[in-house]
């Protein structure tokens, strides 16, 4: 019952706020919208205690949906160590962001609708992480996609924002096609969609007769869509059109990590599938590097954070690819803290700047909004990997396994990730410098309006900053070790463990120093940009990926749809047939109507002719 209530409470919030929230006022909406997720969080903590005491996963079968084949399809929840970590992140950080939203969205006319959607998101996200069967996971998977669509397009009066929502939804459909095919293959091979059964089948000595690599890659395509990996990453930067707390909750802390969760949950498949793991590591590394380079050249504070999120998700997938599943979840967990803190901090900055998001028009905010500044700085240092903050531990472990894992680790992978880590530190400190230091570059009027955010927002920032600072001391990989054994190390790399730690500290500090040097004096940044104008242009245009997709996919599809399906199919064939039939009927009627002269005598004559004709016919034939 407890496990069922965890997702059901936010759903109740969705129903209440969605149906009557408008009429019952903002205070009521806030209490329902924040209170129910908090109760869910408390329930998750209770379940966690029970799990720690008993040691065996809690399982709850709610409903048998269909019973055929070998195994019934059940709506069942499972609370094991992995689900526990995910549920606590989702409900904990989710609740914090709900509280923050009461301040951020205070004056929005769609207040009730906003909280209804946010609660709906939590419901589906909790289905996703608690589901015992892939089918329940998939329901949550699609549901969070829906909630994401609704919230990206929350201000749907703006056509661009509505379009960003559609882009996210449609891009995810591509990934979901792969996910579905993977699920079908699994069901065919294993005969059930229960993830524990699938994992057990693949972990046993005689794995099912199906190519683990094929299944693994198909599922990874789904993960690519949800977790914004190349080539399906294009939706996430546009998703920043939604309200900032939404970006923090859905597009940084929770939903986009669903792909990482899913691949970790099905890790026995990937243990067997060396090829799929290589693909994941390669895609992850490429995405991490690519997104980090783009983030350097972006000027929208949220766009920088969006590309940073894509890059960090790439880090997580590298960890998955080299078999360090626990480490991937560790980075997911630390990332949830510092990225949520960064996004909410960015929201607070935007709030202070009366809606301005361009860092070129900021600067010098450190003194004006001190709480936001301090928390933002802590989170920045955490993501850059400065010890002893949370990001340092998880990123260092990823770097270590990228080098040392016996299943896929290589010097090349390590080098790419190290450079990416350097870029990460650089672009994050660039963002910090441009936003908070230097001379103010905003208009006098905007400067006059700068103010610190209300306590509901800064309080949450402080909590998240504390999490970003000390969260790394909680060793998630160790906690998850009963589920995910850490990968075996290559021979002869043990001696490199300490050098890697020093190197990752050095990387973070170099990034900090580099950003300080370049952006401490903006003339230097300007000179640098002028010298590498071509490179800067490509980065600022995000490698023209959107333009490429537009030319390769969108425009041909539009052309085919218009010329073939619309003009030829719909207009010529279908409309033409119907119009033709109507025209035929009209013309025939036009000919026959001439008989209706209104002349009584003609009618009579025709009737007479008819009588004579039929008499003649009956007597002669």
């Amino acid at each position, binding site marked *: 019952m407890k496990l069922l209530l965890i997702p059901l409470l936010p759903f109740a919030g969705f129903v209440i706020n969605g149906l009557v929230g408008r009429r019952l006022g903002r205070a009521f909406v806030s209490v329902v919208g924040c209170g129910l997720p908090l109760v869910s969080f408390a329930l998750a903590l209770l379940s966690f205690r029970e799990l720690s005491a008993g040691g065996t996963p809690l399982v709850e079968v709610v409903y048998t949906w269909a019973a055929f084949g070998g195994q019934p399809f059940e709506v069942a929840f499972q609370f094991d160590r992995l689900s526990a970590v995910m549920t606590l992140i989702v409900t904990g950080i989710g609740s914090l962001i709900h509280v923050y939203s009461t301040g951020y969205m205070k004056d929005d006319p769609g207040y009730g609708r906003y909280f209804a959607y946010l609660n709906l998101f939590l419901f589906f996200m909790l289905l996703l992480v608690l589901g015992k069967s892939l089918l329940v996971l998939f329901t949550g998977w699609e549901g969070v996609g829906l909630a994401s669509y609704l919230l990206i397009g929350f201000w749907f009066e703006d056509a661009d924002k509505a379009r960003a929502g559609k882009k996210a939804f449609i891009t995810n459909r591509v990934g979901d096609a792969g996910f579905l095919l993977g699920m079908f293959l699994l069901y065919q091979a294993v005969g059930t969609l229960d993830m524990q059964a699938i994992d057990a089948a693949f972990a046993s000595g005689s794995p099912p007769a199906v190519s683990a690599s094929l299944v693994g890659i198909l599922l990874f395509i789904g993960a690519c869509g949800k977790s914004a990996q190349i080539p399906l990453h294009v939706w996430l930067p546009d998703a920043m059109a939604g309200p900032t707390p939404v970006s923090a909750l859905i597009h940084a802390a929770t939903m986009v990590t669903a792909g990482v969760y899913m691949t970790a949950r099905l890790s026995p498949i990937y243990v067997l599938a060396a090829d799929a793991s290589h693909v994941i590591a390669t895609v992850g590394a490429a995405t991490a590097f690519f997104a980090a380079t783009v983030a350097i050249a972006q000027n929208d504070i949220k766009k920088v954070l969006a590309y940073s999120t894509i890059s960090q998700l790439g880090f997580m997938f590298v960890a998955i690819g080299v078999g360090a599943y626990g480490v991937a979840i560790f980075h997911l967990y630390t990332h949830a803290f510092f990225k949520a803190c960064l996004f909410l901090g960015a929201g607070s900055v935007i709030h202070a700047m009366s809606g301005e998001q361009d860092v070129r028009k900021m600067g010098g905010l450190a003194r004006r909004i001190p709480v936001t500044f301090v928390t933002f700085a802590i989170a920045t240092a955490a993501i850059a990997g400065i010890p002893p903050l949370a990001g340092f531990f998880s990123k260092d472990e990823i770097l270590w396994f990228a080098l040392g894992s016996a299943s896929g680790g290589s010097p090349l992978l390590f080098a790419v990730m190290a450079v990416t880590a350097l870029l990460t530190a650089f672009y994050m400190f660039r963002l910090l410098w441009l936003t908070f230091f230097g001379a103010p570059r905003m208009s006098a009027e905007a400067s006059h309006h700068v103010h610190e955010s209300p306590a509901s927002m800064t309080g949450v920032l402080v909590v998240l900053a504390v999490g970003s600072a000390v969260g790394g001391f909680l060793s998630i990989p160790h906690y998850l070790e009963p589920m995910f054994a850490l990968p075996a190390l290559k021979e002869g790399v043990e001696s490199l463990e300490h050098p890697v730690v020093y190197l990752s500290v050095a990387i973070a500090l170099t990034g900090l120093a580099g950003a300080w040097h370049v952006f401490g004096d903006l003339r230097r940044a300007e000179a640098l940009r002028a010298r590498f104008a071509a490179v800067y242009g490509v980065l600022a245009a995000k490698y023209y990926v959107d333009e490429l997709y537009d030319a390769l996919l969108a425009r041909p599809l539009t052309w085919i749809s218009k010329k073939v399906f619309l003009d030829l199919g719909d207009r010529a064939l279908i409309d033409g047939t119907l119009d033709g039939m109507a025209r035929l009927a009209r013309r025939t009627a036009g000919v026959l109507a001439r008989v209706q002269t209104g*002349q*009584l005598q003609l009618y009579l004559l025709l009737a007479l002719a008819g009588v004579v004709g039929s008499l003649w016919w009956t007597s002669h034939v």
Partner: protein
Amino acid sequence: MDKTQLLVVVGGLLFSIGLAGIVVRRNALVMLMCMELMLNGVNLTLVSFAQRTATSEGAVLVFLVFVVAGAEIAIAIPILLLLARARKTLDVQAYAELKG
């Protein structure tokens, strides 16, 4: 040709003349008279056969036809009067409102 045959032929002729009159003549009054002609053609046939078969049903039926014809004229003449008053003509071709 015996008498009955002759009478039936005359009845048929009367009917045909009436029918042709209705179809070709345009004056509504003349058309009504032609209709009477047709009715009388039928009546003549009825009494001829009644005479021939020595039964009375045919002769009785004739009276029924008379009554119907009288009633019909009683209604048709006022209608024609109204039409003539409205249109100042009895030409049926002028009444073609139901043209398709």
